[in-house]
C-alpha cells in the first residue's frame, strides 16, 4: 500500500485551495495540493468580470466601505447567508486584493482625467482625480450600491489564478496534478485524509494528514446547460457526503447566470452589463426596465434570469434551432471599449458564433440564455471552515457552504470569496493542523484503500445493459427541465424519483474496457453515482423547501417564507445503501443578525411571509444604533455592538481608503 504522509492535505487546486495551501505552508506545515488537472487550468481561470472589494478608489466607487458591501451581500443572499461570515468576508476582501497586487496580479488601474462611459444606455462623462491615479479601479456589477468590482480586463480569474499558483510554487507547496480523491479516510467522527486515484497510472494511494481541506469547486455539471468547466462535477462534496457524517448545506441553492452564449453555454461576463450592455427581445426592445425600473439589467442575477425566461414565455424570445433566446447588445459601448476591456467576450463571440459584438446594430448582438452557473450549496462548515460534524475536515471556496451567499450570490463575490476564504479558512485550517496530532492504525488506512480497490473491480465486473454516458445525460437533462430556474412540487417530485432510479441503474452498466488506467468510461462509472447523489440532494432539498428565496423559485410557493423557512437545509447520506439523502434543518437566529430580514428591493412588495422576530430585532438594532451614534461612536463600534465576529491574522484591521481617516 502506498501511503503519503503530510501535515495539511488540500484537495482541489483552484484559487481557494491554492490560497489555503499557501497559508498552511507559510505556517511551517508540509502541505500537499491534489488537483484533477494542472492547477492553472482550474475553473477559477474562467472567472471573467472581476472581484468585489470595497476599495473606493475610483469616482463611481467613492464612499464605498465594508458596510455597503455587507448590506449588498446579505440582500443578495435573500437573507439566507450567515451574517457573521459575510462580515468576515467584506472586511478581508480589500486585503485580499491588495495582497494579490503584491503578488503581481496586474489589476486595471485608475487613470486621471475624463473618459466616456455608458450608464443606463446613455453616454456619460466620468472624471477621475489626480490623487487616485494608479490605484486599483473598479467597474459596475449587478446588485451593488457602488462600482466595486475590481478587474484585469475580462480575464480576472486567470490573472488571479496565475498569481496565486506562482506564489504557491515560490513557497514550494507540493502540488500534484492529475490526482483524484475518491473517498475520505475517517474513523469515528474524525477525518484522516483521502484515498486518491492517480489519473495517469490508475494506481490507488492513501494520503494521511492531520487536516484535510476540500476546495473542489461547484457541482454545475449535474446540469446539462452550464457555464461550468467539465471538471465541476461536485465530487468533492460527494466524498464528504459519502462519509455518512459530514453534511452538505443548501444544495438546492443553485444560481443561473443570465448571459451564457447560445448554444455552447460559454459565459459572457456580467461585466458586459456592468459596463453598460443591455438585453433586447425579438423586436429589439430593451425589456428589463419594464420589469425592474430601478436596477434594470443590473438587478441580481436570479432576478434577471427569471425576467428573461418570463419575457420568453410572453412570446418575446428570439427563435433559433436551439430554442428561444434573448439578445445581449454591447455594441453600444463602442469598439474601443470592447477591444480593451471585453476582449475575451469578443473572441468568444467571434470564434464560437461568428459574431463581432463590436459591430453596430443588430449584427453585433449575441444570443444569450440563462444557464446554471454557480453552486451556493456545498459542504456545510462552521465560520472557521471546519465541518460541523466531521473533525479535521475543512472546506473552502465554491465547494463549501460556510455560508456567505445564502440563496443567491452577487456577481464578483465568488472569485473574491475564493481568495478570501483561502486566507481566512486557510489560516484556521493551518492552526488546526498545528494543534492536532493524529494517530491512526495502518489497518484502518488499508481498509479504506481496499474498499475503493474492491469497488473499482466491482464496477469493471458489472454486466448490465445500461450505458453510463446515457445515464449521465439523462440526469443532466432532467435537472435542467425539472430543477431549473422555475420549479414546482410535481416536477421536483418526478425528478427525485427518476434520479433515484438512475442511481440504481449505475450498477446495471457494462464498462467496455477492463483496464484500470487510461479508461475514461471507468472514470464516468465511479463519478456518475457520486454526481447523482449530489443531484438528489439538490432536487430533494428543492422539493421540501416550499417557498421562493433567491435563486430557489417555486411557482407553487411564490412568497419568501421567513416564518417557516428562515433556515439552512442540511443533507446527509447516513447509510451507503440509501437511495435518497436524509434532510434536517438548521434555524437562522434572527436575534443575532446585524441586518434582520426585510424587503430585498425587487418585484412587488408583499411577497414575504414575515417572521415575528424580524421587526423586534430591527427595533433593537435601530435603538442600539441611534443610541451609540448619539454618543459619538463610529461605525466600527456600532457594528461590533450589533454583531461581533472573529478573524485570524490581522484581517480585522481597518482597511485604509483614500480621503478617509
Amino acid at each position: 500500500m502506498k501511503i503519503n504522509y503530510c501535515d495539511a492535505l488540500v484537495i482541489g487546486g483552484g484559487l481557494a485551495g491554492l490560497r489555503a495551501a499557501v497559508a498552511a505552508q507559510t505556517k511551517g506545515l508540509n502541505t500537499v495540493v491534489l488537483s484533477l488537472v494542472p492547477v492553472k487550468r482550474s475553473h477559477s481561470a474562467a472567472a471573467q468580470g472581476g472581484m468585489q472589494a470595497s476599495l473606493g478608489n475610483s469616482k463611481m466607487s467613492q464612499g464605498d466601505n465594508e458596510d455597503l458591501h455587507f448590506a449588498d451581500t446579505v440582500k443578495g443572499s435573500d437573507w439566507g447567508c450567515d451574517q457573521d461570515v459575510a462580515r468576515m468576508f467584506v472586511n478581508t476582501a480589500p486585503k485580499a486584493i491588495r495582497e494579490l497586487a503584491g503578488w503581481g496580479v496586474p489589476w486595471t488601474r485608475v487613470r486621471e482625467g475624463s473618459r466616456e462611459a455608458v450608464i443606463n444606455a446613455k453616454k456619460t462623462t466620468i472624471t477621475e482625480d489626480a490623487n487616485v491615479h494608479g490605484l486599483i479601479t473598479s467597474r459596475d456589477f449587478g446588485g451593488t450600491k457602488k462600482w466595486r468590482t475590481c478587474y484585469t480586463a475580462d480575464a480576472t480569474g486567470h490573472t488571479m489564478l496565475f498569481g496565486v499558483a506562482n506564489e504557491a510554487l515560490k513557497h514550494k507547496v507540493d502540488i500534484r496534478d492529475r490526482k483524484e480523491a475518491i473517498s475520505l479516510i475517517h474513523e469515528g467522527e474524525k477525518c484522516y485524509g483521502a484515498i486518491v486515484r492517480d489519473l495517469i497510472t490508475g494506481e490507488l494511494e492513501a494520503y494521511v494528514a492531520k487536516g484535510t481541506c476540500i476546495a473542489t469547486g461547484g457541482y454545475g455539471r449535474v446540469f446539462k446547460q452550464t457555464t461550468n468547466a467539465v471538471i465541476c462535477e461536485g465530487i468533492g462534496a460527494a466524498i464528504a457526503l459519502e462519509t455518512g457524517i459530514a453534511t452538505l448545506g443548501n444544495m438546492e441553492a443553485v444560481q443561473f447566470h443570465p448571459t451564457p452564449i447560445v448554444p455552447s453555454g460559454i459565459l459572457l461576463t456580467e461585466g458586459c452589463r456592468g459596463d453598460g450592455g443591455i438585453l433586447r427581445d425579438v423586436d429589439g426592445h430593451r425589456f428589463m426596465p419594464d420589469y425592474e425600473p430601478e436596477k434594470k439589467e443590473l438587478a441580481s442575477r436570479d432576478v434577471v434570469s427569471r425576467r428573461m425566461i418570463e419575457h420568453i414565455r410572453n412570446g418575446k424570445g428570439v427563435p433559433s434551432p436551439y430554442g428561444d433566446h434573448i439578445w445581449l447588445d454591447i455594441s453600444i459601448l463602442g469598439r474601443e471599449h470592447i477591444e480593451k476591456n471585453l476582449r475575451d467576450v469578443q473572441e468568444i463571440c467571434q470564434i464560437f458564433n461568428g459574431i463581432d459584438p463590436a459591430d453596430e446594430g443588430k449584427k453585433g448582438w449575441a444570443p444569450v440564455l440563462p444557464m446554471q452557473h454557480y453552486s451556493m450549496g456545498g459542504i456545510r462548515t462552521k465560520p472557521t471552515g471546519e465541518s460541523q460534524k466531521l473533525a479535521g475536515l475543512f472546506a473552502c471556496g465554491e465547494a463549501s457552504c460556510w455560508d456567505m451567499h445564502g440563496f443567491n450570490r452577487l456577481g464578483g463575490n465568488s472569485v473574491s470569496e475564493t481568495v478570501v476564504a483561502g486566507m481566512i479558512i486557510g489560516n484556521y485550517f493551518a492552526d488546526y493542523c498545528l494543534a492536532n496530532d493524529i494517530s491512526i492504525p495502518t489497518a484502518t488506512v488499508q481498509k479504506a484503500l481496499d474498499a475503493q480497490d474492491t469497488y473499482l473491480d466491482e464496477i469493471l465486473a458489472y454486466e448490465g445493459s445500461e450505458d453510463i454516458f446515457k445515464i449521465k445525460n439523462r440526469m443532466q437533462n432532467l435537472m435542467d427541465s425539472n430543477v431549473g430556474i422555475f420549479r414546482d412540487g410535481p416536477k421536483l417530485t418526478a425528478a427525485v424519483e427518476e434520479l433515484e432510479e438512475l442511481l440504481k441503474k449505475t450498477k446495471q452498466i457494462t464498462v467496455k474496457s477492463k483496464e484500470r488506467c487510461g479508461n475514461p468510461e471507468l472514470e464516468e462509472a465511479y463519478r456518475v453515482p457520486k454526481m447523482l447523489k449530489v443531484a438528489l440532494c439538490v432536487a430533494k432539498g428543492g422539493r421540501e423547501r416550499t417557498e421562493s428565496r433567491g435563486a430557489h423559485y417555486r411557482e407553487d410557493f411564490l412568497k419568501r417564507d421567513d416564518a417557516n423557512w428562515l433556515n439552512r437545509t442540511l443533507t446527509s447520506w447516513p447509510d451507503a445503501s440509501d437511495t435518497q439523502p436524509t434532510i434536517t434543518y438548521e434555524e437562522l437566529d434572527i436575534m443575532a443578525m446585524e441586518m434582520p430580514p426585510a424587503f430585498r428591493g425587487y418585484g412587488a412588495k408583499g411577497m414575504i411571509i414575515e417572521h415575528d422576530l424580524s421587526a423586534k430585532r430591527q427595533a433593537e438594532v435601530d435603538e442600539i444604533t441611534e443610541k451609540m451614534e448619539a454618543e459619538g461612536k463610529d461605525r466600527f463600534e456600532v457594528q461590533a455592538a450589533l454583531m461581533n465576529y472573529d478573524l485570524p491574522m490581522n484581517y480585522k484591521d481597518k482597511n485604509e481608503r483614500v480621503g478617509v481617516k
Partner: protein
Amino acid sequence: MSYEKGREITISVLKFNPRSAVSKPHFVDYKLEETPGMTLFIALMYIRENLDPDLSFDFVCRAGICGSCGMVVNGKPALGCRTLIANYPEGKLELMPMPAFELIKDLSINTGKWMDDMSVRVESWIHTNEVVDIAKLEEKVDPDIADETFELDRCIECGICVASCGTKLMRPDFVGPVGLNRVARFEIDPHDNRTAEDFYELVGDDDGIFGCMSLLACEDHCPKHLPLQNKIAYLRRKLVALR
C-alpha cells in the same frame, strides 16, 4: 428543434497508450454527422460517448481560457475547443498529440508538469523584500504599465508555442517561448525587483534567450495572440547588452 442533416465528417485520431504492453501507435477513423457550430470538443465528446469510450483527451473550460486541449490538427497545433469543424471544407481532420510533451495516452499529454518546471526555472513569481501591510493603500502603478503587464500575463500555458518551436526540437532543454514571455512579463512588473542581470542568470544561454532562432511559429499559432516575436527580440537586445 429541426435543422438540415449535416455532412458526414471523418475524424482520424492517433491512439496509443505508452503504459500498455500491447498498445502500438495507430490511427482510428471515426465517422459522425456534423452539427451546427460543432467544435472538436463537441465532436470528441460525441465520439467518446457513442463510438469509443476508451478515447483519451483533455478538456476543462471548453472556452479557450484554460489551455488544456492543445493538439495537432491537420499538422498544426491548436486548441481543440476553439477548432470549428465548419472551417475544414474537406470534412476530414487528423488529430495527433502535441510533440515536446510527455504522452499520457492518445491526445492527452502532460503539459502541467512541463509548465510547472518552467515556472520554477524562470522563478515565475514576484521577487521583493518589501513586506506589504495589506490593510494599507496599495502601491500605485502607472495604468499603462499595468496594462502592458496584463498583455503578457494573458498566456494560458497551453504549450502550443512549445509544440510549434523549431529550437525546442533541437534543444530539449529550451525554455520555450512561454518561458521567455514569462521573463518579459516579470521584467515589466514594477512589483518585481529583479534586474536584467538576474534575468541573465536565468535565461542568458542557448537554452534560453540566445537559443531562439526566430522562426516565429510560436507567434503564428499562439491562441492568445501574444506579441512573442517583439518580446523575445526585446529581451535578447536587453540581455546581450550586458556582456
